[in-house]
């Protein structure tokens, strides 16, 4: 219990430090936000007016406290550039991104666990070597390249799926799914290649354990010994890596959303950067960093559930 409380406290402190880091980064060039928002031809008065309107002339500590307090109430403030509140934009786009990332991770695991296990069981044989080689090549393919290749083949070539766009599920579930297939596959295939390598090493590690030899000596085949005794143990490193990779997927989704013109957080982030809309950038980056930190927390907790040694030590 004490370990859990300590971990939660550490999480809160890290999130707090991250808010300072994100806020600080945006303030590195003083006066930047208002000058950029006012435009190239703005006079000193224009800049001063915007600074006053959005409270940018107040001391930094006050501005930071204001921003932090707003976020705690779920309010990210108002964009200096568009004049619109930022919270609805974040709330809408986060759904798209999360649907993308979670579906991709599930698909990646569905592919990687059997392939990685097979690659481990077939080690030293031709098929196992081919599987390992394929995963090594897959790791080197950036997801946006995978997305472009998928569009070439399955959209422009075969015409099976739309090449871009998004349809909310309430306007038809079939359309929702068909728009989702290619971007999810683009993210998942590369992820599956990475995870296959970890599943393979984890299974190889477990196969050397004494308890598997015992199970085999008691008459089980190596396959069934692995399924009954080994996979739970092999799951521990895989869960850890899958968690770390979820964070990678989240950032990967930023690029994939551009490829497929999806209205997710990545597209909003890139648009905000292009418009030099620093407060919106600040909000979206903070949400992404918060999600990454939350994922790390969940992985730590899951880890102790899966591994009784860690749980009892805690």
């Amino acid at each position, binding site marked *: 219990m004490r370990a859990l409380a300590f971990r939660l406290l550490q999480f809160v402190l890290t999130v707090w430090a991250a808010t300072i880091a994100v806020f600080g980064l945006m303030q590195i060039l003083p006066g930047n936000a208002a000058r950029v928002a006012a435009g190239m031809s703005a006079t000193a008065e224009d800049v001063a007016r915007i600074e006053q309107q959005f409270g940018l002339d107040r001391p930094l500590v006050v501005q930071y406290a204001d921003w932090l307090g707003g976020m705690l109430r779920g309010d990210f403030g108002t964009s200096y550039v568009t004049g619109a509140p930022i919270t609805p934009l974040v709330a809408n786009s986060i759904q798209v991104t999360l649907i993308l990332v979670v579906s991709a991770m599930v698909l990646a695991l569905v592919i990687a666990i059997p392939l990685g296990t097979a690659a481990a069981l077939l080690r030293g044989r031709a098929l196992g070597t081919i599987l390992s080689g394929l995963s090594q090549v897959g790791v080197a393919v950036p997801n946006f390249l995978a997305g472009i290749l998928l569009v070439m083949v399955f959209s422009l070539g075969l015409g099976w799926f739309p090449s871009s766009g998004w349809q909310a599920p309430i306007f038809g579930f079939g359309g929702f799914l068909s728009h989702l297939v290619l971007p999810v596959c683009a993210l998942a295939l590369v992820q599956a290649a990475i995870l296959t390598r970890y599943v393979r090493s984890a299974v190889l590690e477990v196969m050397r354990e004494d308890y598997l030899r015992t199970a085999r000596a008691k008459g089980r085949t190596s396959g069934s010994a692995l399924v009954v005794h080994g996979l739970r143990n092999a799951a521990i490193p895989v869960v850890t890596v899958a968690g770390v990779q979820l964070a990678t997927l989240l950032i990967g989704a*930023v690029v994939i959303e551009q490829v497929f013109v999806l209205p997710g957080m990545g597209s909003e982030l890139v648009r*905000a950067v292009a418009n030099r809309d620093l407060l919106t950038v600040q909000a979206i980056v903070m949400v992404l960093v918060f999600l990454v930190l939350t994922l790390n927390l969940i992985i730590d907790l899951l880890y102790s559930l899966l591994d009784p040694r860690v749980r009892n030590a805690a």
Partner: protein
Amino acid sequence: MTVPTAPTTPTRRRARDLTFLVGLALVALIVLMALVSLVWTPYDATTPDPAARLQSGSAEHPMGTDRFGRDTLTWIMLGARITLLVGVVSVGIAMVIGVPLGVLAGMTRVRWLSGLIMRGNDLLLAFPALLLAIVFSAVFGAGTVPAMIAIGIAAIPAFARVARSGTLQIMSREFVSAARSANRTSLQIALQHVLPNIAGLVIVQASVTFALSVLAEAGLSFLGLGTQPPIPSWGRMLQESQQFLGSRPELAIWPGLFIALAVLGFNLMGDGLRDRLDPTLRGRS
């Protein structure tokens, strides 16, 4: 990111050497292209040739031309330069800052100091390279220089972790106790005993980080937030190819292929080196 490696057997060691050599060959190919491009390219990169727009591969243009009639091979060669430059500078930044921090965290007996370094590391880990690079492009403007710095900063934790765990192992060895009783200062111990012994781990990390930085730069340029035109970069070429996917797929395939080859090369080299240099694996057979 390290994949746990199975113990070494003679066949396995041969496979590892092959891995390393294939990686080295791919990296050498990219380096060679970049070096040649310094003195010679088939065409001028920026001069448009309206008569030769959107051609497929031919004797004059082996990889075809883009929508302005510019030679794709020339752009691929010049893109190799940016890819390597970003990799070298960002890995350099990460190594120069991360390794001393990691060694310090591993050697110091001041608990709050090592705690502070490692917590700072955890915080930095929440900012993946591409995200930090996007933030930098928002604050400082898009360009190769902010991209290199951001990718380098984001990679500091990886080096600090590797350096710290390596240092902790070295510090428990007898030759360090011997050096201590011979009144060597901590700085002397760090330079004479710790750094040479963790160099292998650091080199492996550098190779893997190089691959990650190639990916991050390509992604950033693909978003239009990295290297800016008219400087050729593979990510940018891939982005511009998107509107011609139906008619000229090779415009996407060439830069995509070279991004993948570069990443594959540095990953394979790192994997191969890890088995040769990692002291925890060396003795096992």
